[in-house]
């Protein structure tokens, strides 16, 4: 592993960081917890995934690269599950949707 970072990892990690930034902006700008989770889940998943793949390309198939690959798969697999748990928990705990929301079938059906 050389200390100099090649072009491909730089590009991957830069795009990843950009999407992470957009996800963070979405957390601030969007109105309620559900919309914020949308931004956080999508952007942070792809952003982190790309950063980890960048690490894999940079370090190659050694201990660090394999760990980065496993972490990337794990992030892709678990982050939507986590956001589902957060959204469901928030809804059951009574967090209201933003007042501009169109419809809430979940509340109609479950009464929660």
């Amino acid at each position, binding site marked *: 592993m050389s200390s100099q970072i090649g072009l491909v990892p730089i590009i991957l990690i830069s795009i990843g960081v950009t*999407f992470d930034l*957009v*996800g963070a*902006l*979405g957390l601030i*700008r*969007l*109105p*309620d917890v*559900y*919309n914020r*989770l*949308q*931004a956080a*889940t*999508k*952007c942070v*998943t*792809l952003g982190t995934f790309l950063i980890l793949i960048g690490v894999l390309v940079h370090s190659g198939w*050694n*201990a660090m690269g*394999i*760990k980065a690959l*496993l972490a990337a798969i794990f992030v*892709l*697999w678990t982050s*939507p*599950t986590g*956001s*589902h748990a957060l*959204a*469901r928990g928030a*809804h059951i705990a009574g967090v209201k*949707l*933003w007042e*501009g*929301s*169109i*419809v*809430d*079938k*979940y*509340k109609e*059906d*479950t009464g929660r």
Partner: protein
Amino acid sequence: MDTLKRRLLDFVIYFVLWLLLTWSFDWQGVVVGAVLAMVFALALSGLLPKGAERLFSPVRWFWAIIHLISLLFWIVMANFDVLYRVLHPNLPIRPGIVKIKTTLKSDEAKAFLANSITLTPGTLTIDIIDDWLYVHWINVHENLEDAEAITKDIAGRFEVTLRRVFD
């Protein structure tokens, strides 16, 4: 699939995971990994759901790869969608929770459908009750009562591949 085979499969998964995580192949490391994998495979109640023999079907793996490719494409689209909505000065959102009916049968298929929906443009699965998925949609359509069109819009593109992977 009988219990012994399931335990053996668990053992193989734990052991391979150990080897990948430690990435050292001197004999001490391998022996410790084998012992630990055996302990976990015997002590825990099993890693895989019912019908684990589906793991050995190449056709299913082929469709899993197709699904993964389409999923990655939609994840990228989802990110540009969020980019557009977040950076637009007027914040163009029309959120709401809709429900869709899935035709998938097995629990694993439903779970992966829910995860895939969460990662695609503008949708976030909140809960699954029987065949109904409750989905938070950041840009709800005009024709709200047309459940079929909504289902097709949100879940249609994944049901095709997931049915071939799991059901």
